[in-house]
C-alpha cells in the first residue's frame, strides 16, 4: 500500500456518512446503518457494496442508486408553492355557494343566484325540511281559515329540483373553518367558495321561561306543533293560551288565535301592547280592535315563574299575580345565534355585523342577510328588506353589476285583522 492510498483511505474513513436513494422505489441506503439483512454491517461505504447487491425493497441493483441529500423542509415548502398544480381542488368539483338557512332569506338568495347563473353550484343547508312558506301567514292563518297543509307553498325537495341546487335538509351547520373555507355540518363537511349566512334569529327566552313549557313561534315547524297541541276548537274545545310579550308577533298571534276561538291572556312588561309605537297610539288602537275578542291584556307585569301543575301551566308574575293556561307562548324578542359567526371570528355587533352596501361580513368570503345581520349594530327583522338584500348579494357573487343595498324606513303593517294598522 503506497502512501497516497493510505491517505485516501483515511480521508474516506473520516468523511461524513452518505445516503443513497434507489431511483426505482425510493429506499434510502444510509452508510451509517448499512444493510445488516444483506450482510452489510453498519458503516459500509456505498462504494464498498458488492455489485451483486440488490435493493432490499424492490430488487434493483446498485447502479440504480444515486446519492441522496435530504432537503430542508423550508426548501420543499418553497418549491411546492412555486409549482402550479394542474388540478386544484375545486376546479373539477367547484364548491360554489353554500347558503345556511332555508327561510325566506335563504330561498330568495338561491332564486336570485340561479336566475343570474345557470351553472353555479348552490348548496342550501337547513335544520328544517326546507319547505317554502310565507312566515307572515303564521300570524293570520286562523283568521283566513288556512288549513295547515296549505301553508307550504312548495316543498323543499321540489324547490331544490326546480332551482337545481343541493338541499341538505334536517342538517345543523356547526362551525366554519374559515382558513380552509369549509362549513362543518351534521351531515358532513362542505367546501365553499362563498358562504352566505341566512340562518335568522332565535327566540330570546328570559330565564323564568323554560323552553320545555313555552312555545316560540319563529318558524313553520314550531307553529304546526303548536296548532297540533291546541287541537280543533270544534273537536277539543277552546283552550286558554297565555302569550308573554305584546310586541308585533305577540299581538298578531293573540289576535289570530282569538279569532280561531281560543281564550287569550296577553302579558307585557309595558303598560300597553305595541309599546314601541306608543307615539302613534298603536296600543290604544289595537285594544279597541280587540274589544269583542276573547283577549285579556295585562300590562306592567314581569313573569317570575312558569311551572307545570298537572296538565296545566301556571304563570306567576313578580307582583304576585297567577294565571293558568293550557299553552304558553313566549314572544319576547329575537336574538341571532352566534355559534357560526364566532367559529369564523366574524365581527359581531348585536348580530353578524355586515358592511351596509355589500352585506359582506368581516370575512371577504362570507356574506349574511335577513334576521341574523346588523348594520352599525342595528337589526331590522322585517320581511321587506330581505328580497333587496338577496339581490345585492346575488349580484356580487355572480359578478354582475353591483346593486348596493339601501337601508329604508320600514312601514310595519300590523296584521290585527279586524283593524289592521300601519306603523312607521
Amino acid at each position, binding site marked *: 500500500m503506497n502512501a497516497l492510498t493510505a491517505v485516501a483511505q483515511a480521508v474516506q474513513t473520516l468523511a461524513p456518512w452518505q445516503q443513497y436513494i434507489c431511483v426505482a*422505489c*425510493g429506499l434510502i441506503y444510509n452508510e451509517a446503518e448499512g444493510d445488516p439483512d444483506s450482510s452489510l454491517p453498519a458503516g459500509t461505504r456505498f462504494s464498498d457494496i458488492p455489485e451483486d447487491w440488490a435493493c432490499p425493497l424492490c430488487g434493483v441493483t446498485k447502479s440504480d442508486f444515486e446519492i441522496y441529500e435530504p432537503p430542508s423542509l423550508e426548501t420543499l415548502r418553497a*418549491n*411546492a408553492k412555486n409549482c402550479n*398544480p394542474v388540478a386544484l381542488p375545486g376546479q373539477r368539483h367547484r364548491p360554489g355557494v353554500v347558503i345556511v338557512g332555508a327561510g325566506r332569506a335563504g330561498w330568495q338568495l338561491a332564486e336570485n343566484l340561479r336566475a343570474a347563473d345557470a351553472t353555479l353550484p348552490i348548496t342550501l343547508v337547513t335544520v328544517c325540511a326546507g319547505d317554502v312558506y310565507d312566515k307572515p301567514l303564521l300570524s293570520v292563518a286562523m283568521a283566513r281559515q288556512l288549513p295547515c297543509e296549505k301553508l307550504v307553498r312548495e316543498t323543499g325537495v321540489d324547490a331544490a329540483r326546480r332551482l337545481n341546487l343541493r338541499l341538505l335538509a334536517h342538517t345543523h351547520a*356547526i362551525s366554519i373553518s374559515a*382558513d380552509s373555507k369549509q362549513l*362543518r355540518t351534521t351531515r358532513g363537511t362542505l367546501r365553499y367558495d362563498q358562504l352566505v349566512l341566512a340562518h335568522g334569529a332565535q327566540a330570546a327566552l328570559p330565564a323564568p321561561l323554560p323552553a320545555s313549557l313555552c312555545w316560540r313561534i319563529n318558524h313553520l315547524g314550531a307553529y304546526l*306543533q303548536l296548532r297540533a297541541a291546541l287541537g280543533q276548537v270544534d273537536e277539543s274545545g277552546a283552550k286558554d293560551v297565555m302569550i308573554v310579550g305584546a310586541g308585533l308577533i305577540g299581538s298578531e298571534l293573540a289576535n289570530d288565535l282569538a279569532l280561531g276561538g281560543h281564550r287569550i291572556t296577553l302579558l307585557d312588561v309595558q303598560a300597553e301592547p305595541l309599546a314601541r309605537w306608543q307615539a302613534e297610539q298603536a296600543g290604544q288602537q289595537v285594544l279597541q280592535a280587540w274589544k269583542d275578542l276573547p283577549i285579556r291584556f295585562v300590562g306592567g307585569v314581569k313573569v317570575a315563574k312558569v311551572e307545570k301543575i298537572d296538565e296545566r301551566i301556571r304563570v306567576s308574575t313578580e307582583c304576585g299575580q297567577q294565571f293558568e293556561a293550557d299553552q304558553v307562548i313566549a314572544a319576547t324578542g329575537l336574538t341571532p345565534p352566534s355559534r357560526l359567526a364566532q367559529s369564523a371570528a366574524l365581527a359581531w355587533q348585536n348580530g353578524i355585523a355586515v358592511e351596509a352596501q355589500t352585506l359582506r361580513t368581516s370575512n371577504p368570503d362570507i356574506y349574511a342577510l335577513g334576521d341574523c345581520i346588523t348594520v352599525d349594530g342595528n337589526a331590522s327583522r322585517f320581511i321587506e328588506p330581505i328580497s333587496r338584500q338577496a339581490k345585492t348579494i346575488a349580484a356580487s357573487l355572480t359578478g354582475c353589476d353591483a346593486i348596493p343595498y339601501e337601508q329604508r324606513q320600514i312601514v310595519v303593517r300590523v296584521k290585527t285583522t279586524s283593524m289592521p294598522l300601519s306603523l312607521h
Partner: protein
Amino acid sequence: MNPADLPRECVLATPPAADALLAAVRTIAQGPLRQQVDAIDRQGHYPKAILQQLAAAGGMSAHLNAPHGSGDFFLAIQAMAEAAKVCGATGFMMWCQAVCGLYLQQSGNPALMGNVLTRHVAGLGMGGTALSNPMKSYAQIESLLLKATKVDGGYMVNGTLPWISNLQADHYCGAIAALPESNAELMFLLRCDAPGMELVECPTFSAMEGTGTYALRLKDYFVGQDDIMADPAKSLIAHIRAAFVMLQCGIAVGIIQGAIESMWAVESQLGHVNQYLEDRPDTLQAELNALVARVQKMAQTPFDTSTEFFIDVLDARAHGAELCLRATQSALMHQGARGYLMSSDVQRRVREAHFVAIVTPAIKHLRKEIARLSAEEMPA
C-alpha cells in the same frame, strides 16, 4: 397504603415542566417506541414498558390537578400526539390511561384518590375506560350493558362489555352499570383480577393489535365502597364528558402530523407528480394548525359543562377524525408503491385513521349527538 410508602422514584416531586415533558415523551417515541411499532400494530405486542416510561415522564398525567399534574389538558394532548405520530395504538393507550386517571381524581373517593391514583400516575397501576357503551347510552344510541343491584356493603354487577382497551390481568378500568331499581347509574373501578371478572380475547383487528383490548364478562362481580367512583354517576359524567372527548384529539393530531411528514419525506423525488394530488402537505398542515389552535383554546376550560361548549368539543373531535382519514389517505397517494408496502408506516396510518374514525365516539355518533344537542327544545 399511603403515597409516602411507595418507592421514591414512583412519586414525582413536582410535575415536569411542559418543554421537558414533551422532550422526554419525544425521546421515548422516536427511540424505543419506533422500534416496536410494527409488533404493536400487527403482532399484538402490548408495550407495557414503554407505557410505564411514558407515565414516569408525566406523559399521561399533565391534565390532572396538582400534585399529580399541572391541570394542563393541552399539554396532555400534545404528549399524546408525540406518541401517536409514531404509533397510533400507543397514543390511544395514553388516552385510556389519562382518562382513567381523570376518573380516579374526580371521583372524590379518598380510597381512589390516594394510593390508587399515585400508583396510576407513576405507571405502576394501569388501566382503561369502559365508558364507550355508557357514552353511547347518554347520547341515546344504545342502552347500558352492565346492571348493578344493591347488596350488603356495595353492589353486585352482571353483564358483558365488548372491546375495552389498555387491559392486562392486573389492570383496571372505569366502568358504569345501570341501577334499574333507582333509574340511575353507578360508576366504579372495575378490577381485572377480582373474582367474577373474566377477560375474553377479541378477534383480530385490522390495526393496533397490541392495545390490550378484551371483552369483559362480569358474573356477580362485587363493588365495595372503596371502588365507587360516583353513585349516582350522572353529575360526574356531566362534569368530565367534554374532557373525555377533548383528550382524544391528541391521537388524531399525532396521526395527521405523521402523515404530513411522510408526504414531505418523498417531496424531493415525487413532488413533480405529487403536485397533481388533492390535499397537499402544506394545505393539510394549515388545516391541522387551525384545528390545534381551536383545541388549545378549548383545553383552557375542560370542565365547562355548557351544551354549547360540548358541541364545540364534539365538532373538533369530528374534525380530527375527518382530517385523519384525508391526511393518511393522501399520504399513501403521495408515497405511492412504497407506502403500500406492509412494512410502511404510511399504510399503517391509514388503518390507524380508520380506528380514530370508528372508535367511540365515531364520526357518525358525533354528528348524531351534535344534532340531538342542537335541536330546539319545544313543549311536549
